[in-house]
């Protein structure tokens, strides 16, 4: 018994030495929202690791919260525990992470929020935000919808997983801008598709039954948008129906090429990941970094699609 204790203490000693030796490399921890739920996040993770590997001074610790806020908070604590130099967090929930961010701030660990922003109350405690502007994306989609329908028509909306920030913000931007820009376009119903193509397809089938006339469909991402498109194609009602998405996926890009899909918002996970890492490095280098660093997420439509590469996911 006593022997094993001594062994433990001895090993702790050597570990402490080992971490002390690598003190001049920069250690950055990242906790992601839910890798594997969609390709965007997976590609983001790969791009992030690649970018970090390319920089010999950076060592990264990559964690995944699996969509669970509580686990993400634990991971924040674990990262603080490991004395990382900075934490990058992709919030599972913009609201619920505020105290954890505040705690890191108190512990002197700068926090960089990536992809979807943290709630207003937490803005004082973060070093910077880097990512797309989800509300702006919703606005872009509303503008495209308006343009495609010439300001008149009846549409349905398929949102992401209820209760998650990205879904809420895109819906918010879309709803507000649409009402303002095109009062002539009415939203018949809003139903969730849970970021799941099959579920979106099922929901769309029911909506097609319910409404004799649907002029347009806005989906929280292209994955669901293609599901809705599939439903409409199967029902023989896709002709003349306008499909607009967000986060352009390869399937969406292809559908656009075939002329079945009207437009989306181009958002590259590679840009997203690189921007996050760069922002973190800038913060650590003591540069004067603005609080909000939006990277560009332009509209992509059938007309301008060839200016963009086909998404890799």
């Amino acid at each position, binding site marked *: 018994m006593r022997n*094993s204790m001594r*062994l*433990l203490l001895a*090993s*702790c000693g050597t*570990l402490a030495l*080992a*971490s002390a030796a690598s003190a001049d490399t920069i250690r950055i921890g990242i906790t992601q929202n839910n*890798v*594997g739920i969609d390709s965007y996040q997976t590609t983001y993770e790969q791009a992030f690791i690649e970018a970090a590997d390319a920089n010999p001074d950076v060592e990264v*610790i*990559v*964690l*995944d919260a*699996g*969509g*669970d*806020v*509580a*686990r993400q*908070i*634990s*991971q924040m*604590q*674990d990262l603080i*525990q*490991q*004395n990382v130099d900075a934490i990058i967090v992709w919030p599972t*929930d*913009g*609201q*619920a*992470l*505020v*105290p*954890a961010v*505040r*705690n890191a701030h108190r512990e002197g660990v700068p926090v960089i929020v990536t992809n979807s922003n943290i*709630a207003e*109350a937490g803005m004082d405690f973060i070093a910077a935000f880097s990512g797309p502007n989800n509300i702006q994306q919703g606005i872009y989609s509303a503008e495209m919808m308006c343009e495609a329908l010439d300001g008149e028509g009846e549409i349905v909306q398929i949102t992401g*997983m*209820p*209760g*998650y*920030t990205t879904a*809420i913000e895109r819906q918010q931007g879309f709803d507000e801008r649409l009402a303002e820009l095109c009062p002539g376009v009415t939203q018949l119903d809003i139903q969730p598709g849970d970021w799941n193509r099959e579920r979106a397809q099922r929901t769309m089938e029911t909506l097609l039954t319910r409404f004799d006339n649907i002029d347009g469909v806005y989906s929280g991402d292209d994955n669901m948008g293609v599901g809705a498109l599939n439903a409409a194609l199967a029902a023989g009602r896709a002709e003349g129906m306008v499909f607009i998405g967000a986060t352009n996926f390869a399937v969406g890009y292809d559908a656009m090429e075939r002329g079945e899909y009207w437009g989306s918002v181009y958002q590259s996970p590679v840009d997203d990941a690189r921007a996050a890492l760069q922002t973190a490095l800038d913060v650590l280098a003591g540069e004067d970094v603005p609080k909000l660093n939006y990277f560009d997420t332009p509209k992509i439509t059938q007309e301008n699609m060839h200016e963009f590469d086909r998404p890799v996911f």
Partner: protein
Amino acid sequence: MANLTQIPLLRWLMRNPIWGFVLIVFIFFSLSADNFFSERNLMNIVVQASTIGLIALGMTLVMINGNIDLSVGATLALAAAFAVDVQSWAAFATWGNWQILPAVCIALLVGILMGAINGFIVWKTGVDAFIVTLGAMLGIRGLVFVYTGEQSFYAMNFAYSDFSFMTIGPFPVLAVIFAVAVIAVHWLLSRTVHGRNTYAVGGNREAAVNAGIRVGPHMMINFMLIGFLAALSGVLLSTQMGAATPNLGRDYELWVITAVVLGGTKLTGGKGDIIGTLGGVLAIGILRNGMNLMQVPAFYVLVILGSILIAVLFLDKRFNRTADGGLRL
């Protein structure tokens, strides 16, 4: 002398293989993961494990009763929503920091009420608890969405989230609350009449009925206790977040059941204890924390946790094989 002390310890470990497992992973991570063996990290583990742990205490009671509760994750979310939302009710606007008090009380009452509904249905309809609470798992989650309107609630008052960072002496307050709950439920189960009746009802329901134990209300009380503990867990979780989200606690029921079963409680009822459950909770907590520290990729964590669960079940069966005397059935 070494022999004399070792033998009871070994025998104890054979009966509680999960603690042997906890010991092994503890030593393993101490040796192989940076920063694992430090006071702060160990406290972190306890705090992190307390969310699942508090519910697991209640689940132990319910499972010893021969029932199960799948609705705890949803109850946790509902209680968290109330705890955060009630603070901002106009009625308590002038209460200052005291507005937290009625909020927490209402949240805990909501948890007890959800447990009471489950317990009452199980008692009166005689439908299996698995089915009743599977329904409630969907239904209560529905209530969460009705109540929150899909939005997250957040606490304006930072005093609420500061609570979770408080310490009592060297110990984080959340760890202390968990420890108190562990001791209280252990005491309840091993020392009180209600606790002993819990074993009786699960071990031989017929006998309990014949002995005049009012089985229905008894089970209902245990459902209310797990409702309370799930709500408490939700409240504490919401203090860590300063907010409540409608998706909080998804899949927690599966981890809670896993922890309790790892701890040696029988799904058929009548057998189990809090010491084992604590071992199960710590085992999962240490594994998650240690794998985070070792940066095991998320995809592999799923495979490892799943395999370990099955492996421990297998070992438990080897060690604690019932004396069937070699009959091949």
